[in-house]
C-alpha cells in the first residue's frame, strides 16, 4: 500500500554515490535490491570510473536507505559530495 504512495512518475532527486561495484556480477548483486525500490525510477553504475559512481534517479531523497541497501549486499557505498 505505502509503495503506491512512493511510486511517483516524477524524478525529483538525483543521488550520486561512490561505490566499489566494479564488475557486471557486482552490478547484478545490487540490481537485486535496487530494482525492488518503487521510488527509484532509474539507476546506473559507471564501472569505468575510478569511483564506480552509482547514479540514482529517485522520487525521494533516500540517501541513507540506499547506502544501507548497498552495504547490506557487502559493497561499499558513500555519498559523493558536490
Amino acid at each position, binding site marked *: 500500500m505505502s509503495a503506491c504512495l512512493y511510486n511517483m512518475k516524477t524524478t*525529483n*532527486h*538525483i543521488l*550520486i554515490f561512490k561505490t566499489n561495484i566494479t564488475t557486471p556480477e557486482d552490478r547484478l548483486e545490487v540490481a537485486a535490491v535496487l530494482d525492488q525500490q518503487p521510488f527509484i525510477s532509474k539507476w*546506473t553504475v*559507471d564501472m*569505468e*570510473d*575510478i*569511483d564506480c*559512481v552509482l*547514479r540514482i534517479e529517485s522520487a525521494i*531523497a533516500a540517501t541513507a536507505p540506499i547506502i544501507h541497501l548497498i552495504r547490506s549486499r557487502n559493497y561499499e557505498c558513500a555519498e*559523493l*559530495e*558536490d
Partner: protein
Amino acid sequence: MRYRDENKMQAIRDCAIEMVAKNGLENFGINRLAKAAGVSPATIYIYYKDKEDLLTSISIEEGVKMTRATLKGFDPNASFREGLWVQWKNRAAFSLDNLQAAEFFEQLRNSTYKDKMREAISMEFRKSMGSFVENAVKRGEINEMPLEVYWSVAFAPLYALIRFHNEGQSLDGRKFKFSESIMKQTFDCVVKGLSK
C-alpha cells in the same frame, strides 16, 4: 536536493570539448574533466550518467549547432551558384569561429559517438542539401554525379583554405591568411568546374 544549473552545465560542456579537442578521447574521463572544469565529479554525474552519455550528448548538441549554422539563410530552391555561396559563407564562418568544435569533431571521427551524432543530424541536413543538388540537376545547372565527387569539388577546396589559415601557412611554408576575396576566387573556380 540537487538542481540543474545551466551555467555549470555549459562550463562542463565547454571544458569537455576543449579537453577532447586537445588530448583526444583516450585520456578523457569524468574525474579529469571535473578537475579541469573546477567542479566535483558528483556535479557532472547530476547531468550525465557516464562518460559515454556525456560525449554522446555533447557530440549531438555540437552537431546540431553546426548543422543549424550551416543551413542559416539557406534556401534549397535557390540557384546553384547562390545556394552554394550561402553554404560556403556559413561553413567558413562556423569553422573559423569554432576552431575547438572542429578539432572536437576531428577527434570523434571513426568513434561510435560520431555515428550517433550523424544519425541525429543527417535527416535535416540531407533533406535540405539533397533537394538543393537535385533541383540544380533538374534545372540543368550541374550534372548528376556521385555524392563523393560532388562534395570533393563543392566543399573540399573551402576546407583546404580553412586548414591553410588555421596552420598560418600553405605550401612550402608560405604565409597564408583566409579572406573573403580568396574564398570568392576559389568559389568561382568551383562553380565553373561543377557547372554544365
